[in-house]
C-alpha cells in the first residue's frame, strides 16, 4: 500500500502533464525516496494509481539505472567509470573501495552501510575521478580522500 504521503506527492506531479502515465518515473522516485527501493508490491500499487499495467511500469522501472528494484545499503556510492575517469584512474578507486569496504560493483557491505555501483559520466570530467554518494558529488578523488569520505558517512 502506498502511504498517504506517497500518494499525495505522486498526485501533485499530475498537474505537469495531461496523462497520468507520464509521471511514472516521478512516482517510482517518490516511492524509492521513502523506502530506499521499489518492491514488486510497490510496482503494483503505483501501476494501479497511474492506470498502467504492472508489467509496463516494471518495463520502465528496470530500464533506469537509478531505480533500485532490489534493496540497497544506507548509502549508495555511484562511482563514475566512464572514459575520462578511467583515464584518470577510476579502476584504482574501485579497487580501493573493495579493499576498504569489501564490496565490488553491484554489492552491498555486510553492515548494510554502503552499496557500490558504476555510474556513467557525471559531467565533471575536469575534476576526474568523480563519484556521487547519495545526492552529493565528490570530485578529484584519490585513495586518501576516499578514506576521509567513508569515515564521514559511517558516523
Amino acid at each position, binding site marked *: 500500500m502506498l502511504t498517504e504521503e506517497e500518494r499525495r506527492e505522486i498526485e501533485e506531479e499530475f498537474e*505537469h502533464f495531461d496523462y497520468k502515465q507520464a509521471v511514472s518515473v516521478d512516482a517510482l522516485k517518490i516511492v524509492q525516496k521513502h523506502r530506499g527501493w521499489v518492491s514488486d508490491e510497490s510496482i503494483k500499487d503505483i501501476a494501479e494509481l497511474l492506470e498502467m499495467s504492472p508489467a509496463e511500469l516494471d518495463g520502465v522501472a528496470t*530500464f533506469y539505472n537509478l531505480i533500485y528494484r532490489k534493496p540497497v545499503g544506507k548509502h549508495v556510492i555511484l562511482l563514475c567509470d566512464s*572514459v575520462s575517469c578511467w583515464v584518470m584512474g577510476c579502476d584504482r578507486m574501485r579497487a580501493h573501495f573493495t579493499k576498504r569496504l569489501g564490496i565490488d560493483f553491484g554489492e552491498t557491505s555486510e553492515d548494510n552501510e554502503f552499496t557500490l555501483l558504476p555510474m*556513467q*559520466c557525471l559531467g565533471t570530467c575536469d575534476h576526474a575521478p568523480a563519484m556521487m554518494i547519495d545526492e552529493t558529488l565528490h570530485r578529484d578523488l584519490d585513495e586518501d580522500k576516499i578514506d576521509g569520505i567513508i569515515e564521514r558517512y559511517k558516523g
Partner: protein
Amino acid sequence: MSEPIREKPLTKNFSPGEAPFDLKQYESGGGYQAVRKAMTEMAPEDVTGVVKEANLRGRGGAGFPTGMKWSFVPMGDRAPKRKYLVANADEMEPGTFKDRLLLEGDPHQFIEGMILAAYAIQADVAYIFLRWAYKKAEALLGKAIAEAYEAGYLGKNILGSGYNLELYLHTSAGRYICGEETALMNALEGKRPIPRTKPPFPQTSGLWGKPTIVQNVETLCNVPHIVANGADWYKSLSYSGNGGTKLFGASGKIKRPAIWELPLGTPMRELLEEHAGGMQDGLKFRGVLPGGASTDFLVEEHLDLPMDYEPVMEAGSRLGTGTMVILDDKTCPVGMIRNLELFFTRESCGFCTPCRDGIPWTHRLLDAIETGDGKPEDIDNLDFIINTITRMLGRTFCAFAPGAVEPLQSGLKYFRDDFEQHIGEKRCPYAS
C-alpha cells in the same frame, strides 16, 4: 577565414565559486531584453528567421541547423492545438561537461532561450529534461523558474503579448539513451524510453503525437543573444560561416582540464596547448576524441584542424559536443576503447539486434585482447561487427550504434600496432 570578434556571450555572467545571477542581476545585465523585444516587436516567424540567418547549429552532437528545424513546425490557426518545446539537459555523453556549466553558471540565460524558442514555434508547454545527477542545477533551475513566473516571463499573457507558456522541470533516473530525442519523448510520456522510428519527425509528430522541438541546452543559451544582437553580430563571433562561439572542453592527462568559450573554428592545437596548458609533465599526446565518447579518434596530424563542424567531419570524425578526451602515450588505447565499449554495452537500449548483440561482442573481444587472451582473428571479428553496423547506417532505430563503433573503428586504424602487440605478446604492454 575571417578574424572573429572576441566576445563571450554565453559565459559573460559567470562568476566561478559564487551563486549565479538571480533575476534582478540578470536583468540589470540586459537579461530578458530579448524576450521583451520578441514579444513586443517580433512575430514568431521573425524569431525563427533571425536564428536561421545566424546559422546557429545544434550543440547537442548532430549539428542540425536550428532555425531550419523550427521552420518545419506547423504554424497558424490550422496547426495542432498543443505544441511542445523540450530542452535536452540529459548530458550523459562520456567526456562531456559543458551543459552542466551553463545550467549552473547562468540558469536565467537558459530559461530566456527556452522562452524564445517556445515563442518561435508557439509552444504551449515546455519541459526541461534534466539528468538525475545534476542536483545543483536542479535546485538553481527550480529557483530561476519561480522567479521567471513571478516576473511574468512565464505563465499567462507574457508581457501583455497574449502568448502563454507553462514550463516544467523533469528530472530523469539515469539512462544515456534518454538523451536521444525520440527516446526522450517516450521517457517524458512515462513509457519505456526506447527510440522511435523516424519519420514521422518530432517537428510534426512528437510528444503525444503533437509538434515538438527538442533542443540542446547550449543551443538554447545562444538564442537570447541572437535575438538581442542580430544575425550579423552572431556570425562575426566565429571563424567560419557557422555562427557563434562554442563551449570547448578537454579532459584527460592535460595540465588544465576545463571548459572555454571560444570562437567556433578555434584550432585544436590552440585549445590543447594554450588553454589546456599542454600535456602533464612526462606525457606525450597520442590521440583525442574530439567531441565525446561517440566520435572517432583524431591524432597528431589533425592538431591544426579548426574545431568546427565541416573540418572535423572531413578529417573523419565529428565535432560532437566539442568536449575532447585526450589519450596520452602512457595510457593503453586498447584499454581506453574497451572502457568506451563497456559504456555502450551497458547503455544500448536493446531495440536493434546489431547494437544489442554487436556492441557487447566488441567488448568481449576487446577485454580478451586487453587481458592477454586475444587471437589474431579477433581483429577480423571487430572489423566484421564495425562493418555490419556502419553498413546499416540509418537502419538502426537511432544513431547510438553507429556512434558506438566510431572510436573503435578509428582506434583500430590509428593504434593497430597496439592491438597487434597485445595479441602477439599476450599481455598489455602498458601494464606496470
